[in-house]
């Protein structure tokens, strides 16, 4: 059994209105040092695979096909073997 922890974020070149709103809210709360906020998604996948390479391949495909939109987003993940 493997656990993939996936982060999906907007590409640096893509404007993030949600992050901008949170930055403004933080500023109004007195967090004046916060210069930028970028929002993203966190996804955990628990999956069975015959080995690490197969798990890695499945996770990458899931990210490319569904979890991230390659036009505006990028993804990164960690993969860990866990008990069933």
């Amino acid at each position, binding site marked *: 059994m493997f656990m993939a922890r996936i982060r999906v974020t*907007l590409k640096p070149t*893509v*404007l993030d*209105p*949600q992050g901008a*709103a949170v930055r403004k809210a933080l500023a109004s709360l007195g967090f004046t040092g916060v210069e930028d906020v970028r929002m993203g*998604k966190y996804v955990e996948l628990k999956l069975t695979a015959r080995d690490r390479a197969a798990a890695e391949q499945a996770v990458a495909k899931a990210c490319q096909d*569904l*979890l991230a*939109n390659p*036009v*505006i987003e990028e993804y990164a993940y960690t993969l860990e073997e866990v008990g069933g």
Partner: protein
Amino acid sequence: MRFGVVVFPGSNCDTDCYHALRGLGYPVEYVWHEAASLPEVDCVVLPGGFSYGDYLRAGAIARFARIMPAVAAHAEAGGAVIGICNGFQILLEAGLLPGAMRRNASLQFRCHDVHVRVEAGGMFTSLAGRGRVLRLPIAHAEGNYYCGAEVLTELEANGQIAFRYCDADGKISAAANPNGAVGNIAGITNRRGNVLGLMPHPERCCDPVLGNTDGRLIFASIAASRGGLCHVG
């Protein structure tokens, strides 16, 4: 000219589309998202709403619905496809149109009439004509169209930008842009011109009782492109 309106779980403009098209005199039927094939239709309508609750990203899950390969095949064969609002988002996620949708720059759900200028001729706009200003309602939180500079250049060069947000006089300006979309883009077609995605809702302004019938021009253009009945004016 037969229309098929695809119904996804969470579609909520399917009935509006059906009603508008029936009202214009066109044969129309619903197509369930789990159908493996399309009935005999000339134009597929992907309606607005919140398919699959907009989970993950708007349109991201609907793209994998069982009916979608048939919709793609219909488009590939030259058949007309119109995606309205959530339907536009689905077409982008499915790769039938280029680009992606972001949250509105204002972060607000925008629900009001906008003006759009017809930028290109073709099967969806032939009766309106280039340069015509239409008043159409919008209702969305994710209509902030995005594409890279290269794709934008291509869209412009190929005449794929169907509608841009403008003011009542047809002037394109940042003030007239309700969501921050690149180039004030409200709607685009594929290169071949038989697949249209747009954020405004033409089906919500086809019946005179609603005070505006500008939406008729779009559906009637589609019908006219197939030599169908024309019910404008």
